[in-house]
């Protein structure tokens, strides 16, 4: 059997608030095989977003290791970790996090500015990504000119434009109406099935979790075994 693309080993995460230590994750281990669509569920404060942040390389564990596609990212320094994220991670946020002063095209192009692609190559990639999410005709629109569902689809285009190793999505439907949420989930399902993208998604929404191959529950910093 192939190595899991995400290997979380004995990870502990403790936040410090003033002089108090607040343990969020305790000795967590998790494997995600390549091409998996995994949903992480759990009540608020269970540590699911923290686990997602650790897998995405925007936070560091106090103990344990996180290996993504063979690289132990817990050992990378700040600068190397930024480079690693640019190359390997596509982000989808609950509130889309598009840059309001940039057009849909420019927002999707942002991660490509960290690659060595030429302007023409970047254009090709951006147009392809926006076509995948069905917004090729909205390239010149600014985020405020788009609906919530369209904004999230632009955010998904931004997440896939570099062809990352994994896509991490934090409550991607949390700010959307039911119809838009279904569209976004269908799109993520398509990315997983058609383009074989590995997706780790945090959600509260049972309907969203149904789209995933597998659901893991976090509660009080511990991961269930189902």
């Amino acid at each position: 059997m192939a190595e899991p693309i995400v290997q979380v080993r004995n990870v502990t995460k403790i936040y410090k608030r003033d002089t108090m230590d607040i343990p969020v994750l305790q000795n967590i281990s998790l494997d995600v095989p390549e091409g998996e669509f995994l949903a992480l569920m759990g009540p608020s404060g269970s540590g699911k977003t923290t686990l997602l942040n650790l897998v995405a390389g925007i936070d560091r564990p106090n103990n344990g290791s996180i290996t993504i596609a063979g690289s132990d990212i817990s050992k990378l320094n700040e600068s190397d970790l930024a480079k690693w994220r640019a190359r390997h991670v596509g982000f989808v946020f609950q509130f889309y996090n598009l840059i309001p002063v940039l057009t849909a095209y420019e927002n999707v192009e942002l991660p490509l500015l960290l690659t060595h692609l030429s302007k023409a190559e970047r254009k090709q990639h951006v147009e392809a990504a926006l076509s995948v999410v069905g917004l090729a005709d909205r390239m010149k629109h600014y985020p405020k000119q788009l609906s919530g569902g369209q904004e999230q689809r632009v955010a998904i285009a931004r997440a896939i434009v570099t062809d990352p190793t994994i896509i991490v999505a934090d409550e991607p439907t949390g700010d959307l109406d039911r119809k838009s949420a279904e569209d976004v989930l269908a799109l993520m399902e398509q990315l997983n099935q058609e383009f074989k993208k590995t997706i780790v998604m945090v959600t509260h929404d049972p309907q969203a979790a149904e789209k995933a191959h597998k659901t893991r529950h976090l509660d009080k910093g511990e991961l269930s075994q189902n």
Partner: protein
Amino acid sequence: MKIPLSYSFRSLWTRKLTTFLTIAGVALVSFVFTAVLMLANGVKNTMVATGSADNAIVLRKSAESETLSIITFDEADVIGTQPEIAIGNDGKPLMTKEVLTLINLKKHGAQPNDLSNVTVRGVTPDGILLRPQVKLTSGRMFNFGSSELIVGNEIADRFDGMGIGNTIKFAGRTWKIVGHFDAGRSGFASDIWGDANQILQAFNRQAYSSIVMRLKSPKDFAALKARFEADPRLNNLKIEPEKQFYAEQSQTLANFIRILGIVITVIFSFGAMVGAMITMYAAVANRTVEIGTLRALGFHRRSVLGAFLIESLFIALLGAGIGLLAASTLSLLTISTTDFASFSEIAFGFTMTGPIIISTFLFAAVMGFIGGFLPSFRAARLDIVNALRSA
């Protein structure tokens, strides 16, 4: 790769009012900074234009200006025999023995007892020939041997009773104004000229103030200076190229304006820097999530630092450009003040130069950098998770 410049520029216009006010603050400081440098430069240009490259001027050693200098008639005769002096059409050495005195006149609109010092320059006939920038604009030249005067246009325009045909009283005589002259942007434009011998007699003076001579060639200056130093009859005198003399004369006033102006501008600039800092801190606070997103996507801390510094620098440079444009209109103005070297009235303009433009932009860039650095540094240091959580 850097965060695109369009991000920085467009972000500025999302907070139009604060951006505009900050630009206005920087523009104001840049205006004052530019105006001060233009003024100091105008003083220098006026004084330098007063001298001619071919002329040399003789004064008493230790005299810092013509008004404080004394050259006896005997010394003047010795100077006239120096072989380096060019010969005029009349076969005589081309030189003017001049006497300078100060009289008190009232400016337009001043109180009756609020008088200003004005230089009266007595010249000998070659005085006009040696100053090609001096041109009669109306009336006629004064007659040598009479109590007649011609008035520089800066004095004619600013003081009461300077019209042609008017008379003024000083040194126990009544003097008639017979002409007005233009002297370009030179200091002579702030003089009144008359016959040196008449002025010597009226003031009962037994000595000239200065002697200006045309050299056969500017290269002869070194030989002439050497002779001045060797000749015991001329030991108490000093000779300088006329241009250098007037350039040195301008130093005191120009430096005073420059130093006072720059001190004031630097104090003002703290206000502008605090303004820029507040604007940029507000920008960072409003865009915390954007910063977190950019960092999550893989942009380095230094890219975030750079993007915010560019915003701050852009505000500063735009302010500098507006300040410079506003200050450039000052070149249409002429103002006057007391020259510290001669204690007499001197009129000068504001002169813009390339180095002043560069200095203003550099000064503004420093303001933008200092004002923007701390907020930009804060933006770059934001923790990604905390920044994203503030959504």
